[in-house]
């Protein structure tokens, strides 16, 4: 089945919208809120400001959280390993860009 809508849909750039809560991320990634909390505790996700009332994340946390969940599910890496893998992957991406710039 192919459904096509003639009217163009317009959406906002998600990352520019308001800050996310644990509940938002849990819904967007379809995982338990507890799982998101574990991500924060193990340094996989960073909280914007450690507010006494509630944690907040920037929109960029969505991509990071989904990537972490894929690594966890597909490669069965534990949380400390995921935090390390994400940092190394970001480092590799940065170095690749730099390498490209020097070519």
């Amino acid at each position, binding site marked *: 089945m192919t459904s096509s809508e003639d009217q163009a849909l317009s959406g906002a750039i998600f990352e520019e919208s308001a800050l996310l809560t644990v509940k938002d991320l849990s*819904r967007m990634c379809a995982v338990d809120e507890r799982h998101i909390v574990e991500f924060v505790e193990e340094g996989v996700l960073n909280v914007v400001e450690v507010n006494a009332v509630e944690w907040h994340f920037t929109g960029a946390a969505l991509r990071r959280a989904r990537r972490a969940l894929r690594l966890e599910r597909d490669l069965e890496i534990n949380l400390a390993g995921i935090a390390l893998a994400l940092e190394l992957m970001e480092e590799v991406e940065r170095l690749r860009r730099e390498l490209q710039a020097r070519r």
Partner: protein
Amino acid sequence: MEFKDYYKVMGVARDATEAQIKQAYRKLARKYHPDVSKEKDAEARFKEVGEAYEVLKSPEKRAAYDQLGKGPRPGEDFRPPPDWGAGFEFSGAGARDSDYSDFFEALFGARARAGADNRRGGFHPGRGEDHHAKVLLDLDATLHGGTRQLSLRVPEIDAEGRLVSKERVLNVQVPKGILPGQHIRLAGQGARPPGEGTPGDLFIEVEFQPHPLYRIDGRDLYLELPVAPWEAALGATVKTPTPNGTVDLKIPPGSHAGTKLRLKGRGIPASPPGDFYVILQIALPPADDDKAKAAYAAMAAALPFNPRANLGV
């Protein structure tokens, strides 16, 4: 439907132990994981390996699969026997997003799906699940905005309760200034909840196709601009392409290869906007006739220049 040799996919013997299968999977999964791998067909290979492992790691599914293996040869047309699956109970834990092969769906489809979502949390009553997709756009889409037709693979539950992926074509107004790795959020375009309730959202992650002229780095754009030796040495005003049309760029005297010139705010129009960088390259005129050779010789005679001075020779 083609018979799939899961043992071959995993590179293990038919009598491999569970430990050997797990080991083979770990290696292949790391090699082909789309987040990690730079192999060209990584995503397809990763799915194939995941599917093979899904079957071979489970004693029930492996036993059922081995029974079939006695029938047709790999690559031959395959049809599951009518009583297939009788006596096997599939737990179906750990199902992935979608996109199993037809072969897998025919064997384990309906059964494997039942209860597949047990493990997943984040259930919100009355609200459909959010969907995620990834698209590759042309750079022009973010520079100027505009509508693009996007073709997405969307998971859906069919009449028999199986998870299948369907094609969905959407016309989407791309927000001007979106950066690589960011998402377009389309409210209400995700899954519909069973019964009454609000549908979830659709998140489209954006990446850009390589541009013939400009290199993208976050919100900044880079252009390698060839200049003649005298333009770099004496300074010049040269025509330069930018995303907003040709501009006259002033090359300062004494420039060299690698000199970086910044046009502030002329990168991707995000907030704040990125910059446009011009990296100079020195292009040498060919010395292919007497006049050109004489010009080079005159320069050699006139300039006491040792380009290898800092190599100590």
